[in-house]
């Protein structure tokens, strides 16, 4: 094998199928990975980040920015779009040239690997973490007249936390050096991360240039989907509104919204009799998809459990009521179970069978159990609320 081979994956023997009908077309457009050219509803944030990075590049200085927001609010996509626009304008010689480097905390086995990855992307050098740190230190603190500005995007910043926080410290300390010309954009989920986990000297170097991405409102979500679909007529207007209202009420996560829409197109496709003739995705399909995505599976699990398992759950609740606690030993529950068996006119089961029933419920995570070697003294707790169990058992 060649020494410096470029890693690649095997190519397909057949090219990927082109979408055949409207629904498939819509599904391809709604996929989370197909990022659109322009992100709707993030114009203000885009402008802020753009002007921040642009000014730093033009001035030839460095700086930090902290970007926060719940998952699925378009943080990484906006930053990427900013970089794309900046690269476009630097190609046209409107601003000086710059380099863009991206690292992700989730893709590292150890926080110190950040140094290695940054060094490799900057200079194609491979080094150990310590060596890479010292090389980077030297690079950023020594003057070099022809150096271009480096923009570093640090995604999932909270995973770079170490006990001494030296990785975070270095990342935010380098931009303050005079000759560094480094712009760091740090992304994380929580707004108060600098105050919560960073020690003072790290937080103060991060500075106060912060931006938080608000969750999408239902109108914004609707606009996002419409812009994605881009005149492909696959959804009823009301159906889209229902999806966006539901998602906005829960989390405002755009990914979740797109996933539900994709699932609804699938349901629509399956429900129609002929594959060629499919109507629009209606309210019914969307409702079904929402049900699938949001409903708790515990109640279904309890309803589908065997008779003895249902009796056991009932015995657990009876024992909890008797004790007035939310915890009981298997022995206590088993006594209740046998009494219930007699009441129901069933043959009382043995201890082994009772334990098997209990442990099966434990594997479904309906109960929380201790290790099985304690057998009779094993403590039992419910993992769902008592009301849910009673509601599920009441039906029959």
């Amino acid at each position, binding site marked *: 094998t060649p020494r410096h081979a470029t890693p690649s994956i095997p190519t397909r023997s057949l090219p990927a199928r082109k979408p055949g009908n409207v629904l498939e077309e819509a599904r391809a457009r709604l996929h989370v990975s197909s990022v659109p050219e322009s992100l709707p509803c993030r114009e203000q944030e885009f402008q802020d980040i753009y002007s921040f990075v642009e000014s730093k590049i033009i001035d030839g200085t460095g700086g930090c920015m902290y970007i926060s927001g719940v998952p699925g609010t378009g943080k990484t996509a906006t930053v990427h779009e900013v970089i794309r626009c900046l690269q476009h304008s630097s190609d046209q010689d409107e601003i000086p040239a710059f380099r863009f480097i991206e690292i992700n905390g989730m893709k590292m086995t150890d926080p110190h690997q950040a140094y290695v990855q940054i060094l490799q992307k900057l200079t194609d050098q491979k080094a150990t973490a310590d060596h890479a740190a010292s090389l980077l230190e030297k690079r950023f603190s020594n003057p070099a007249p022809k150096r271009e500005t480096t923009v570093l995007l640090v995604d999932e910043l909270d995973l770079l936390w170490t006990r001494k926080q030296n990785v975070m410290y270095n990342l935010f300390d380098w931009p303050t050096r005079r000759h560094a010309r480094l712009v760091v954009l740090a992304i994380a989920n929580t707004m108060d991360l600098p105050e919560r986990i960073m020690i003072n000297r790290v937080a103060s170097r991060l500075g106060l240039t912060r931006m938080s991405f608000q969750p999408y409102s239902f109108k914004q979500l609707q606009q996002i989907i419409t812009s994605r679909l881009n005149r492909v007529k696959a959804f009823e207007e009301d159906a889209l509104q229902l999806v966006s209202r539901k998602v906005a009420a829960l989390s405002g996560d755009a990914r979740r919204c797109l996933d539900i829409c994709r699932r609804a197109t699938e349901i629509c496709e399956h429900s129609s009799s002929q594959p060629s003739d499919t109507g629009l995705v209606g309210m019914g399909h969307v409702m079904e998809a929402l049900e699938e995505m949001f409903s708790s599976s515990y109640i279904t699990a309890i309803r589908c459990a065997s008779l003895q398992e249902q009796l056991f759950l009932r015995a657990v609740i009876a024992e909890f009521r008797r004790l007035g606690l939310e915890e009981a030993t298997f022995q206590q529950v088993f006594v209740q179970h046998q009494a219930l068996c007699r009441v129901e006119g069933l043959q009382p089961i043995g*201890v*082994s069978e009772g*334990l*098997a029933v209990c*442990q*099966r419920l*434990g*594997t479904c995570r309906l109960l929380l*159990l201790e*290790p*099985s*070697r304690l*057998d009779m003294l094993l403590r039992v707790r419910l993992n769902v609320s008592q009301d849910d169990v009673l509601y599920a058992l009441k039906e029959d």
Partner: protein
Amino acid sequence: MSVLLQHPGYADERLRLVTERLPCREAQARTMLALMGEPEQYSYPSIFIYGHRATGKSYVTQTLLKELELPHVVVSCVECVSAGLLFEQVLMTFFGSSSSASLPRSPSFSDFVRLYRQLCTQLPANQTRYIVLDKAELLRDMDANFLPGFLRLQELVDDNVTVIFLSEIVWDKFRPNTGCFEPLLLHFPNYSKVELQEILAQDCHPSYSPELYSSYINILLGVFYSVCRDLRELRHLAALNFVKFCEPLENGEAKEKDTHKLWRNIEPHLKRAMQTVYLREVSSVQWEQQQQTEERETADMRVLSAHDHVELPFYSKFLLIAAYLASYNPARTDRRFFLKHHGKIKKTNFLKKHEKTSNHLLGPKPFPLDRLLAIFYSVVDSRVAPTASVFSQDKRLLFSGGASISLPVVLSEPVSTQCLGSPTPDPQRTLPYLSALQRAHQVKVNPCEM
């Protein structure tokens, strides 16, 4: 004699041999044969066999597999201190000695499965392969994925392989919390008295008639059956005491027919054996020597539990007594017992109600060093100077395991000591090396001796 085992796929001749070698276990052997099926057929992925000690779990399994010449490996989980040993043994037996060379240094279960699959394509099984894991309860203490992994090994390696687990513990205590593939459970019941008699009577002495040996076993079981049903233990006792049983016959005092006379001769001997050999107070070699030399009585022998006399220096003795008194008496009563002029005591309500239960039941209590010395001075009649030697005696007692410093949680607390009169000291409060020392030679303090 029992019914012959029959199963298609195995030669009748072999099965007859197996039947002869498995007395009183025909039913279990038949079930196992049915589960195993013919050699080429796929067997159930995992079988869990449980039963008391010495009910023939390993013996039946190994005899069946060995006599029917099936490819099998027997691994005792006690020996496998690391998982690598277990994997190595399995791979070596099935695929030859060079197969385990490519296992990495500390193999994981997936390494084992990968290598097994790889070797299995070169050497596919034409008969069911059996992995017998003896003492399977130790699998629970290994990595969490071992037990579930072995339970569905057949599925993982895609080979005709069956794992047999042998354990004295029921399956309920094995089941992992995340669930697993449920094995078939097979119980080996205890031998009844009749069955024990039948099995024990098989190894009779060649120079005497089988009837005589059978009656000897009958007497032996009459004495020992109430305390011991362990076949191995009983067989050992039978072998040890048979010489004594035959003594009257050799001397010509009795004939083989005089069962009553023989019984009169052996019965007290067996009763004595129960108190000595059975509890391992006297070793088997000692017991046999004593039977030959006859003159000395059994009671005179220095049994193991009589060896716990430790010669101590004068002050050490008193220190030990003081420590014992300090740890088993409430501090409230010290004034009354040890002070010469303690003033008046109210007779009534001297002992509170909860203290009426014996302090010996609750175990020793910790006490500060000051109290130990105070009691020591009041117990010893003469004047003792608190010299370095007294304190060093104190230390030496600690190291010989008589008393132990209980580790104070907060270091500012005074170091307190505790007399280990009880056989089980609180392990958390004892220094680890001290507890090891205690096990090595424990000083028993008997209240009656003082």
